[in-house]
């Protein structure tokens, strides 16, 4: 191979790779035409053109015709980029500090791997924004970070909001590696909690200690500030709660904090598969609910059981609702398919659309930047081959921050 060709190949590769995880374009101005533009604000614009410049949405105009220029894209439908609050990608066992069960000061932003190939799968399936939290091996795992799924290679460049939520888990997962003090005392896994009660105890203790540390330097401990931010309501608390008893525990915990005068936590219940079993309790709590991927045979993690109409039920209770796909790249389980399942269970199209766009954005406080097609927001858009969420429709184009991640145009 000649030097010239070799250098060209190398240079091209470096250019391709240094700009992003995989071949990435620079930010460009676009005119994106959709026969239907679903803004997720409640409005559907017919024959709309979304103008994109400088990585932001400049505006949407109805009654237009798609152009053929170099910067023109067209599709049957355009929606905002989807938001997944439980993406479970880019953070593995190296992201959770298991030497202690309560680690509120650990920042997932410091351990997320933006080079994970799964990000590309997410981006190409239309998920443009994701909340990354540590896997739930700890009772309190740390601070989750909201990132874009594609863009310049670097956490800082892709972060939408750092330390957006405090992550915790109730249930069997945080305790599964622990064992009582007999047996093998040679590692730190011989500790409590070993049961659900123990997990709950650790959770409550952490917050009680944090509250007690208020105004006292002596009683402060690593993470007490973060815990207090939850009590003050400035940062939401996201708890993984698969089963009914876990959901009940989480809500009772919140009510305990309130009744003891310790604070007013804002609760997000993640993977609340059995939310359908406790409608009254949920309604009373006002908690936001993130539903896990719909298990096709009903049973899912922690032996919980999810019904097809769970999404409709939660929505009808008036609670904030988000759907999630747990990072699945499987075409039968991706986020757009989850919206389809929710609709099949009775959820309306607009509610399903909002449940994968503006609602999750609002839950973690990034709705000023993403979640809907409105002037001033980030240019995160998904182009579809037909009506979104239909089994016969595909994601054919994805734009993130004005960068074309998936090109809908036929190859020359």
């Amino acid at each position, binding site marked *: *191979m*000649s030097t010239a*060709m070799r250098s060209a*190949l190398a240079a*091209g590769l470096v250019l*391709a790779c240094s700009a992003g995880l995989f071949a990435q*374009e620079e930010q460009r101005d676009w005119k994106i035409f959709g026969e239907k533009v679903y803004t997720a604000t409640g409005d559907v614009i017919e024959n709309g053109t979304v103008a994109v410049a400088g990585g932001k949405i400049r505006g949407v105009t109805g009654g237009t015709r798609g152009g053929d220029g170099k910067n023109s894209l067209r599709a049957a439908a355009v929606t905002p980029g989807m938001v997944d609050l439980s993406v479970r990608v880019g953070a593995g066992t190296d992201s959770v500090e298991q030497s202690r069960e309560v680690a509120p000061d650990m920042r997932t932003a410091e351990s997320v791997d933006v080079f994970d190939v799964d990000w590309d799968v997410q981006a190409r399936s239309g998920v443009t924004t994701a909340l990354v939290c540590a896997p739930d091996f700890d009772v309190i795992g740390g601070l989750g970070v909201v990132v874009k799924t594609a863009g310049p290679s670097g956490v800082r460049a892709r972060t939408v909001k750092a330390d957006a939520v405090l992550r915790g888990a109730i249930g069997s997962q945080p305790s599964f590696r622990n064992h009582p003090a007999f047996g093998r005392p040679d590692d730190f896994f011989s500790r409590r909690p070993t049961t659900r009660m123990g997990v709950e105890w650790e959770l409550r203790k952490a917050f009680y200690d944090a509250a007690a540390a208020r105004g006292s330097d002596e009683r402060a401990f690593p993470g007490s500030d973060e815990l207090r931010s939850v009590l003050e309501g400035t940062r939401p608390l996201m708890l993984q709660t698969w089963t009914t008893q876990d959901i009940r525990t989480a809500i009772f915990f919140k009510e305990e904090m309130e009744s003891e005068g310790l604070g007013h936590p804002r609760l997000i219940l993640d993977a609340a598969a059995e939310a359908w079993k406790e409608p009254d309790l949920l309604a009373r709590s006002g908690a936001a609910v993130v539903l896990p991927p719909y298990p096709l045979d009903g049973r899912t993690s922690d032996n919980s059981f999810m019904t097809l109409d769970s999404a409709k039920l939660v929505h009808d209770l008036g609670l904030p609702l988000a759907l999630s796909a747990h990072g699945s790249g499987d075409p039968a389980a991706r986020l757009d398919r989850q919206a389809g399942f929710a609709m099949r269970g009775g959820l309306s199209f607009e509610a399903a659309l909002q449940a994968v766009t503006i609602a999750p954005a609002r839950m973690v406080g990034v709705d000023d930047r993403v979640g809907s097609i409105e002037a001033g927001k980030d240019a995160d858009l998904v182009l579809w081959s037909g009506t979104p969420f239909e089994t016969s429709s595909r994601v054919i184009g994805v734009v993130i921050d004005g960068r074309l991640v998936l090109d809908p145009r036929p190859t020359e």
Partner: protein
Amino acid sequence: MLTLASLVTLALGPVLAGPLPSATGSREAEAPAVLFVRAERVYVRPGEVIDNGAVLVRDGRIVAVGRDLVAPEGARKLSGKVVCAGFVDAWSSFGLDAGSADDQRTSPATRTVDALNEYVDPRLRLEVLGAGVTAARLNAGSSSREGGVGALVRNRPEPGADAVLLGDCCVAASVGLTREGRGRDVFDSLGEVDKLVGSIADGLNYLRDKNDYKVDLEEWRKAITEKEAELEKDFKKAKKDREKDEKEAEEKGKEYKPKKYKEDKKPSPPRYDEDKEVMARVANGELPLVVQVHRCAELRSLLEGTERFDRLRLVIAGGSEAMDVADELAERDIPVIVWPAPLGRPRPDEFEDADLGLAGRLEAAGVTVLLGTGGQAGASRDLPLLAALAVGHGLTRRQALAALTTDAAATLDVGDRIGSLETGKDADLLILDGEPLASSTRITHVISHGDLVVGQ
């Protein structure tokens, strides 16, 4: 949008576009590809150089080599400092499915052509071509005790039928390799040699049985014909005799047994055994046997055991301790495929005494040295660098080049097709900007079966 695939296609566009376009419009659309390559030094073969010569290629073949050649009309003209034949990796796994290459349970009947992976990473394929390696010997099960039938494969930029140069080029075997970290016993290794020798003997016997059968069959046919002629003559008499015998038997109450002629029994062929079929071809010298063996005890035992097969063509792969038997290897004309890679420590036991000077020392002792990349995945690209390392540790440049071209082709029975720049051979050539194997030399063009696959 910039993607790797589009970049590769862009870079290769003119190359992959298909047959080269003809220069004048009067030609038909499917004009044969003609290349005219001129160079300051044309390496016909190591030691035979034509100064300021040229090579004419047409339809994938070399049609002329010489000093006073003229480019025909419409030919694509290329030039460079040096032109030589493409390199052959005599011990490679490039283009072979990984599972098959490592398969430990092959038998002589396993065929490498059944395990070719045509969809190797295109970038890696180009890198290997760009390094000048235009062909390779691949062997399924090359590290198993009884490997399969190896193939000599041409490295083509795209999958195609012309990739296999010789589907049956050799048979592989190995003795004494460290397998799966299991403890090794000296008796195990020598037992492996015995088994291998036994397998060759079985093949030879099988061959003899087949030949005997052929002879017997002929004789039987002749005897039958004679007997039938005889019977024709005495038919009536024979019929009377038979009726008399039958009546006699009936009277005596015995069962009549008709007289059986020897000729009635047709000779049966030896039972078909696919492994023995292959080993028969090895035993009679049709297919060379490439044995990977390193320790001197096993080498000695192997040489001793195979001495009686006077038509067997033995090739040693590895041969870390081959210097101990160098004289016999030279005398019996047994080539050694050396893998000149720097090995660290700890290393598998059989490589304990391996070092980069092996190739040079074997050459000095009169042994034919070939070079290969030890079947390491993806390493074919780096064959010229390993060859250079061997030169740095004593191998002569001339033998290194011969190892990569003429000697490899000759040993693997494709010497009539590749390995040197001679009329009638396939056009696998390299155009370089300096002496082959010097690290500062760049390969500017690679021609594979008459197609310009690297370079403009």
